[in-house]
């Protein structure tokens, strides 16, 4: 890509207010670096070159593939991350590449628009499945850690859980029930609802609570569990 088209891409991204490609709470281990080049010519408003907009990429796991043993084995983590999650990334990028309106959106915003039906209708299902799948798995890797490092929730989270469910054990019971009764493929979630309540819910396939309008219970996920058989 020559420097002019890179500039045009960057300018375009500036106009559409680019934020990070993953939710703001995620620490990106490999941030995209943007380089601005100067051009002596005035910038045209329309570009005839097909610009390569920033695309989503598969985030690295926050830990090694064997870090979750013996609870999740190395082979499962490897296939789950390098095959299943990668496929969602590849597919969502293929869709986004065809629509300039979708380019430059961060992943959370993309999922919210999917929920509101504010995406092109001929690719809404592909976006729902793959944009959902990419966010879900990015979130999932982050909220897990190696077994020796978990000591239960503390502080404000523990208080909120106790206020909403009575106890951490009661939350686990509800969450487990949501996970085991989700028929077919899907996810179980603990979310903060728009009204500020902590609620357990589940979604089918790769739907997620950010996609308000498509799901039974919208909200911001705090915990999620992949209950697809591949997990």
């Amino acid at each position, binding site marked *: 890509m020559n420097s002019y088209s890179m500039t045009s891409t960057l300018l375009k991204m500036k106009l559409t207010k680019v934020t990070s490609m993953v939710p703001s709470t995620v620490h990106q281990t490999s941030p995209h670096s943007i380089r601005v080049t100067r051009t002596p010519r005035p910038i045209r408003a329309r570009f005839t070159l097909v610009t390569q907009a920033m695309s989503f990429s598969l985030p690295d796991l926050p830990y090694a593939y064997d870090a979750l043993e013996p609870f999740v084995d190395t082979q499962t983590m490897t296939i789950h991350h390098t095959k299943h999650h990668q*496929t969602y990334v590849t597919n969502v990028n293929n869709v986004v590449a065809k629509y300039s309106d979708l380019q430059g959106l961060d992943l959370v915003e993309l999922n919210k628009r999917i929920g509101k039906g504010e995406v092109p209708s001929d690719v809404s299902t592909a976006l729902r499945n793959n944009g959902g799948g990419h966010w879900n798995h990015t979130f999932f890797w982050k909220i897990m850690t190696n077994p020796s490092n978990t000591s239960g929730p503390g502080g404000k989270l523990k208080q909120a859980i106790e206020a909403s469910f009575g106890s951490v054990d009661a939350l686990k019971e509800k969450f487990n029930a949501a996970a085991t009764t989700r028929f077919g493929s899907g996810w179980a979630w603990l979310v903060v609802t728009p009204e500020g309540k902590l609620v357990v819910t589940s979604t089918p396939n790769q739907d997620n609570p950010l996609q308000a309008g498509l799901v039974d219970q919208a909200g911001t996920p705090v915990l999620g569990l992949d209950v697809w*058989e591949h997990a």
Partner: protein
Amino acid sequence: MAPRAAHELPPLPFPIETFEFHWGKHHRAYVTNMNNQIQGSDLEKLSLEELIHKSWNNGEPTPVFNNAAQTLNHTFFWESLSPNGGGEPSGKLAEAIKKEFGSLDKFKEEFGAAGATQFGSGWAWLVEAGGKLAIRKTPNAVNPIVNGEKPLLTLDVWEHAYYLDFQNRRPDFIKNFWNLVNWDKVRLG
């Protein structure tokens, strides 16, 4: 006279571990759970198909639907497989496939695409619908009989059907399926 080599146990269509899980655990659980759900109720008097229709409840399925339909789906699935399967259909079925799809290969392509594109869990089907052959894909436990169609052949594309042998590679699983289809069991009405 020289001794003949011993007879051999014929192979299963899938590795035994797959059967131990798919038939021994998944299918068995659907049957057990369904029986538990209908125990002591009038539903016990219904045939499996009647139970499926009733619990489908015109598109608002009741809890027993998933177990009842999955019970039938799996039974139907096993019956259409054979370790000596594969080859081609013949007679009226072959003619009907040629008429509807153009060729057997074209049919396999379309059936395979249905299986590959059923997002999440589900099934691909060859059905008789309104006197013609058609291909369907359904999510989760849904069986085309709920729409008054007659299944002729099915392929389970829930991940549990292929994960042990093919992991994420559903298309490879679908390709291999054609070596296992028992065309004698695929009967036009």
